[in-house]
Each structure stands twice: as C-alpha cells, then as structure tokens.
C-alpha cells in the first residue's frame, strides 16, 4: 500500500518534471506564430538536446578535429562568426558567404542565404562535407562517434539505441539548435508592457514600421522570404543568391531576409558581410539602392530618412538585443 503511494508520487513527479523541461527547452513565445519545424518527427527531449549541444561544440566533426560548429557560430555573437566577413577556410560557394546568426530556427523554412538547404536536420551536412571547411564525411563522423567512449552511451540515452546513425546525429544537432530561442529583448518587454521605449526608440520603432517591417515583420523580424534589397553585386564574388538554387531568373540577387533580432551583435551584415556598422546599413537603404529587374517593389521608391531619423532607427534596433539569449548558460559550451 505504502509502496504504491510512493510509486504514484514518483509518477507525478516524473510527469511534472517532464512537462517542466519540455516547456523550458522549446516553447512558443506568446503572440508568435506556429513553428515551421515538424516536431512530430523529432520530439524534443532533454537528453537529445544535451547530446545535440555536445555535438555542436565538438570538433570531432572536422577532419583534423579542430573546428566545431561553434567555431563559426559563437554564442556571444548570436551564433555567427566573430569578426570575419566571409567565414574563412571555406571553398566554393559557401566560402563566399558570411555565416548567419542562428536563432529562432524552428520558424524558418529554408536555410542558407539562398535557401539551398531544405530542412534544419540537413543543415549540418553542408559544413561537414565541405572540403576546406570541416573536411569530413558524415559517414566518417558517425564512425568516429561510434568509436568514442562517451557517445554510444549518450546516443543510447537519447534514442534508445547505441548504434549511431546519420539520422540520429542530425536530429540531435537540430534539437539543440531548435532551443536557441531569442524572445526576451527589451523590445519584447515593452510589448509585454513591462518596460517603456525612450522617445528616440519610440520614433525609431515608428520609422521601422513604416520602412522596414514589410520584409522584417514582428515578432520574428523576418518574413522568411527571399528578396532583393538592392545591394550592388560584388564583382569578385558574383553571388546571385537564390538564382543559383532555382535557376529561375526572377530569383536573381535574392537573398533570405535575416532577422533583425540581436543585430547589434551579428555584424558584419548582409550575405557577404560587406557592412560593419548599422549606420552603413541605413546608408545603403537610403542612398545605396541599386536598381535591377528583381529589386523589391517597396524599395523601388527611395527611403527618405534624415540623419536624426537614422539614429532613431538604430536606437530601436538596439532594443532587439537579448542578453538572456546571448549569455544563456544552457546554450554555452557544455562543461560536464
């Protein structure tokens, strides 16, 4: 009788603990849309997220065991590459690109600046197989993980199978990346009526809504589409963005609209990292737009902003910085 009561108590405890971790590992912030990632094929669990986190920080993914995902996607810069306009050491098409900030990936449909990757699970394959990047094959990575003295146990804990597969490796990395949610900036506090904008920020918010929100809409600050925002083509890189994937001339010079969340830290900006400062970005939108057949309609007519107004927009953009994301210990190097 007593044993039975303990048993029930245990069950209650396990169930509530489970619900608690589920919520804190992945959640949909209030007012946000439904995620695009299909969780039914890869349900989030704590052991899988932890495994994914370990994999994300493990240089075992590179041929010479020196580079991990985190080498190019560092937490303190919103998971983009510190300081390098073009992620270095990368050949071919990927080498011509600036590594994007990683956050709120569950709400994204296609990945990479040109959408070449069709699912978050498949993203890790791109750097792994790239000759000068991580110089490795997923097949060999899996055999290295299998030979490791820790991973078979961790995979067993996560997937109930100590035989490591490509599928489980990729799903675990996805799980960790899916937990990288940034929804706690000062902007979010203002929206939740827990804080106020300054006059300058308020004006910047208004100007953002007028000029920028069609492509960078709230609450994700991206419409998750491919647009041409009028950047002149770099004659050495000759990167035509989405065209390379679809071969459709209407997609020439279109790149994925990135989020503006944590933009204070995700410099350098644009697919090739051509701008170091937000002031340069605003200068581009007001006086640098290059006309072409595929230029977005809303940018056909120049955006007019006084220099004070530009400063106000930047003040607003800085309210999108989410310190609790950038310094969340759950996302950092696993020290255990």
């Amino acid at each position, binding site marked *: 009788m007593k044993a039975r009561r303990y048993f029930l108590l245990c069950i209650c405890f396990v169930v509530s603990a489970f619900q608690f971790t589920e919520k804190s590992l992945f959640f949909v912030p209030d007012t946000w849309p439904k995620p695009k990632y*299909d969780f039914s*094929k*890869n349900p989030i669990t704590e052991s899988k997220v932890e495994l994914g986190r370990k994999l994300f920080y493990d240089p075992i993914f590179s041929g010479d065991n020196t580079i991990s995902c985190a080498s190019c996607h560092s937490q303190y810069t919103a998971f983009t590459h510190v300081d390098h306009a073009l992620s270095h050491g990368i050949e*071919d*098409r*990927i080498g011509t690109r600036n590594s994007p900030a990683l956050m709120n990936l569950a709400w994204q449909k296609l990945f990479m600046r040109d959408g*070449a*990757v*069709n*699912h*978050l*699970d*498949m993203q890790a*394959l*791109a750097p*792994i*197989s*790239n000759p000068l990047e991580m110089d490795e*094959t*997923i*097949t060999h990575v*899996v055999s290295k993980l299998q030979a490791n003295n820790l991973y078979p146990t961790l995979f067993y804990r996560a997937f109930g199978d100590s035989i490591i*597969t*490509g*599928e*489980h490796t*990729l*799903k675990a990395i*996805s799980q960790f990346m899916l937990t990288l949610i940034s929804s706690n900036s000062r902007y979010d506090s203002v929206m939740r009526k827990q804080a106020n904008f300054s006059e300058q920020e308020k004006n910047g918010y208004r100007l953002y809504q007028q000029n920028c929100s069609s492509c960078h809409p709230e609450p994700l600050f991206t419409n998750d589409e491919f647009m041409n925002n009028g950047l002149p083509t770099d004659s050495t890189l000759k990167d035509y963005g989405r065209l390379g*994937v*679809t*071969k459709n001339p209407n997609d020439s010079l279109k790149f994925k609209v990135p989020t503006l969340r944590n933009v204070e830290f995700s410099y350098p900006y644009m697919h090739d990292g051509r701008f170091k400062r937000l002031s340069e970005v605003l200068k581009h939108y007001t006086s640098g737009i290059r006309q072409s057949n595929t230029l977005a309609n809303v940018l056909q007519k120049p955006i007019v902003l006084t220099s004070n107004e530009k400063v106000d927009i930047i003040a607003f953009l800085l309210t999108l910085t989410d310190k609790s994301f950038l310094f969340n210990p759950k996302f950092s190097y696993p020290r255990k």
Partner: protein
Amino acid sequence: MKNLSIIFVIVFVSSVRFISAQTNTAMYISISPTYGANVVDLADSSFLTNDSNNLQIDVLKFYISHFQFLKAGINVLEEQNSFHLVDASDPKTLQIIILNKQNIVFDQLDFYLGIDSITTVSGAMGGDLDPTKGMYWSWQSGYINCKLEGKSKLCSTRNNEFQFHLGGYQSPFNTLQALEFPISNTEHIHITFDIKKIIENINLATLNHVMSPNNVALQLSKTVSKAISIK
C-alpha cells in the same frame, strides 16, 4: 539468466516465423545490373566492357521507391516505407522481399526511380535514406537518385572519368521517374538495369559530368529510366 533470455528470443523468433509462414506469401524482387547480356558485378572490382573505347563501370547505385501493385489499374497492395538503395557492389541490396499478406493478385508493378519530393523535404531519415549512405547532396539538399561512374577513352577528362550524379526534386528539374510494368510471374519479379542502354544513348565525349539538379540531369534521368525493364 542470459541463457534463458536467449532461449526465449529463439522461441519467440521461430514462432513469429511460423505464424508468418502460414499467412504471408513472400514475393522476391531481384535486381540485376547488366551491360547488355553480361551481369555487372562491382563487389570486388570494376566492370570492364568489351567496348572499343575501353568503357569501364566503377559505380552504380540508385534508389527505387514506392512499390505499388495493381490489378486492372487499381492499387491493391503497397509496400510501407518503401525505399530501397540498390548498389551493384553490394549483393545484399539486389534482392528485396515483400510480404503479400492476403495473397493479393496483381498484374502490374509501379515504382519510382529516385526519391519523391515530399520525402526529400522531411528532414533526416534512417535506413536506406540515412545520409551516411552517400546518396545525399550536402551543399544543396536532396537525394542523389542515381550514381553512375566509370571511365571511357571518349572522355577527355582526368583519368578519362565520367561521373553522373542525378538528382533534383524541385520543378522544373524534378528528376524523379515514375515507372510501370505489366507482371506475369508474381512470385519472382526480375528487374534489369541495363547500363548499355544508357551509354548507347548519350555521347560520353560531350556528356561526362553531371553533378547538380539542372536540365541535363533531367534529360539524363529520363534516359536512365529506360535502362530499367522487367522480364
């Protein structure tokens, strides 16, 4: 204790066997990669043809998927999770067994050469679809439906090599090929993949390197689908 559980497993497995033997008919689908009349076996070495251009076949791997059995044009049986990677260097992959639970009668078999687009956008998958199988593009998502590699004097490439990695799941370059064949012997279905039919229909001197989804891959996929027949 350990012995006991082994005995249990054996009893369990054999009883399952026994039950299944009663109600299921196994259908054997065998696949033969050939070059004309010769069988192409790549298990231990490349395959040398007697073609005047020293044609040699090094790799042949392809996906067949979505087996559907029809009677008078109506779908009567479907293999679940039907994805098969066929590899001319791995004899295990050259035979597929499908259980026909209710002895369903059919006269036609339909399947795809390649992996359909819905499956392609569904994230990481296991079994024959696991990316460790080497049939997944990394720099741009998508399965490689068919790999054919070899050498020929006609190719003025490094080591006279040709490499065809055919894939692409998005229109207008969806390279998936739907195939249908009438079936008379329903117990043993014999699929032949005759590489000669491909080589004879292309010019290796000008076409020897296809590695991404585009119109050339699309046209070549159509040619490759004609190499498949059922006797």
